């Protein structure tokens, strides 16, 4: 090159130069409220009512630039995902969902922005690298440049539920039958990606939760009630439905990056009706409870890139 700066690693790969901007440490986001729940299917207490549960922690950080947020788990056995990133003015808000219902051991969120968007350092010594325009910084040694130590494209499996197969709709059940036979938990549904740079001490990762799925199990029940010699029959109908909304979530294990799912919400609905008439001319009626606010479908199930770094360098 005719001018500029270039730093390579042992393999001869360019790591710093005057054309590609490096991210720099902005700070840790401030943790606010936490919302915990959905350890069971809301409104239902029968078999297969247990879900993985989830906690949503909210974090904020101020930046004129767009931050890249890394999650540093406090409990590496739990699944994590940023399910919402929003901005108002220069205040960025992150909603981090983790599996389980305990609000203890919340993760930390480390934020990084381009060199030009990080607050100016008061340090007088260091190394700055600028683009050829002479004003745009690509690297500032004083502002803790991000060293990305691993990354790849990942995607969770298409089915988020532990039970094999997609829960469907079946008929032929007895009237008012409402016993769930599908395990909606996600603990065993993930794709493991090998990454030797991952440890469960200080590795943090950035991988937004992109995929979303809603699964439903529905059972239709029926009974015909007739009088003497099959006279004056009444039809009885019932519908029971269990549903769970999922978001993709991720887990770090030593040597592995797991792409899976965690339930965001779950519920139960039931309806029953019976005709009037019959041998003794009884009145009809109906009963219902609960609703399913979503449609059973999967969206945004595509590969997304994850990156990892060593959080201890920014503490």
């Amino acid at each position, binding site marked *: 090159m005719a001018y500029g700066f270039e730093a390579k690693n042992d393999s001869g790969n360019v790591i710093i130069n005057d054309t590609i901007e490096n991210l720099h440490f902005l700070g840790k986001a401030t943790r606010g409220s936490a919302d915990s729940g959905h350890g069971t299917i809301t409104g239902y207490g029968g078999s297969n009512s247990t879900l993985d549960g989830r906690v949503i922690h909210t974090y904020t950080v101020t930046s004129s630039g767009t931050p890249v947020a890394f999650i540093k788990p406090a409990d590496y056995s739990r699944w994590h995902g940023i399910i919402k990133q929003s901005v108002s003015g220069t205040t960025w808000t992150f909603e981090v969902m983790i599996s389980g219902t305990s609000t203890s051991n919340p993760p930390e969120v480390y934020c990084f922005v381009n060199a030009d968007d990080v607050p100016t350092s008061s340090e007088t010594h260091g190394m700055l690298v600028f683009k050829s325009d002479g004003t745009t910084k690509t690297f500032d040694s004083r502002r803790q440049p991000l060293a990305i130590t691993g990354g790849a494209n990942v995607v969770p499996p298409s089915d988020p539920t532990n039970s094999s197969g997609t829960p469907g709709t079946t008929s032929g059940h007895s009237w008012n039958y409402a016993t769930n036979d599908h395990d909606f938990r996600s603990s065993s549904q993930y794709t493991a990606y090998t990454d030797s740079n991952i440890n469960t001490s200080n590795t943090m990762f950035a991988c937004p939760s*992109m995929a979303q799925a809603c699964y439903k199990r529905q059972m239709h029940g029926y009974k015909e009630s007739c009088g003497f010699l099959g006279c004056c029959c009444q039809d009885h109908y019932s519908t029971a439905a269990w549903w769970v909304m999922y978001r993709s979530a991720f887990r770090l294990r030593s040597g592995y990056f797991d792409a899976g799912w965690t339930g965001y919400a779950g519920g139960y609905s039931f309806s029953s009706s019976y005709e009037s008439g019959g041998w003794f001319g009884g009145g009809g009626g109906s009963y219902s409870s609960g609703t399913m606010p979503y449609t059973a479908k999967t*969206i945004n199930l595509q590969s*997304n890139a994850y990156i990892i770094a060593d959080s201890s360098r920014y503490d």
Partner: protein
Amino acid sequence: MSYGLSIFKTDGTLGFSTADVTWQTLAQFTVAANATVANTYSEAAGMTVIAQRQLVNVPPASQEDYIPNVVISNNSQTITVSPQSGLSSSQCIIHVLAQDA
């Protein structure tokens, strides 16, 4: 390492080293809802490029907020972001990472 650059923090611990860096940020930009954007980065020619997507200002349970597709082409120099076929797309942050081959 035999050559490269290491930067230490004031407490003497390692803050940055070219020895273990695997990916660089090539670009980061926000694509408006339903927009198609194609950006070319000549410095990425021949590199391995991946892209991270994050929807912005989207409720976590909205079923009608679709992520745009990302296509990397032209010897890894061009990043094209466009809605999924037949679907509207939501505002999205694109974080493009490059790895020297």
